């Protein structure tokens, strides 16, 4: 049986990846709202996903405010697909 990817097998990181798999890109505020998480916690988990190479985080400006946007990478996409396959095998789906 395949082992579940420890980077993805945690609540907030999996929530973020599930969202990013369904959109082209999403900003920090959108992710915070959809995952109902705190800014600090989300920031830490985004860093972990980024370090693993699963997402790219781009910091830019929207007028005078900073805007952080996230996008899933090809590596992240493959990891997520493998994770779902592993889940299916665990649950005999």
């Amino acid at each position: 049986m395949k082992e579940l990817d420890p980077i993805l097998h945690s609540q907030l990181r999996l929530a973020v990846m599930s969202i990013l798999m369904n959109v082209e890109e999403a900003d920090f505020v959108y992710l915070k709202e959809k995952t109902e998480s705190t800014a600090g916690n989300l920031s830490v988990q985004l860093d972990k996903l980024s370090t693993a190479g699963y997402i790219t985080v781009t910091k830019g400006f929207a007028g005078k405010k900073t805007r952080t946007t996230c996008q899933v990478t090809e590596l992240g996409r493959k990891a997520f697909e493998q994770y779902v396959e592993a889940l299916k095998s665990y649950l005999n789906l």
Partner: protein
Amino acid sequence: MEEKKLTERESLELITTMINRTRERYIGDGNIMLMWGYLSVVVAALVWIMLVKTHNPVWNWLWFAIGVVGGIATPIMSKKSELKSGAKSYSDKITSQIWTVVGISALVATLFCFVFSFMGMHNVWRMMFAFALIIVPMAEMAQGIVVKEKSFIFGGAVGLCIGIFAVCCIAADMPLGANWFLPMYMIAFACMMIIPGHVINHKARQQR
């Protein structure tokens, strides 16, 4: 949401919940469509009034106001809309690419019309009506199919019918008279842009 380890079943449930939440996304606003719609209708009305009053074809230069004003306002408005939604979906990307192709084609068509016009073939500008009433409705219908919005499909279909009629008139060397063709052009843009724009804004207000 706290950071915790999950069971396999919880993981699957979480993925499903998040996918559903991305589907509940902001529908967007119809302001860009309304801007193009009202701009096209107002300019067509102005050209019509001035042509009827003065019989001077120089007023046809007013048509360029559509491209200039719309071309400047669209990127500013779409940036604002993107910031408001917080996420860019795949359908947003496809829609944006469709309209980019329409914009580039409009520039190329204008360029060709200028070249032909400099060679003395001023009638070539009629082709821009066919362009506006064939390419734009096709793009709008494609957008309607991608985002599953019926008002885009119906509005585009009305515009396309008028566009096909315009092409037939041009092919048959029938002059596009200002008194009957410009009202048809305005009806086409009202159906293609103004009505769907208000429909989208109404849906967005309901979503809030």
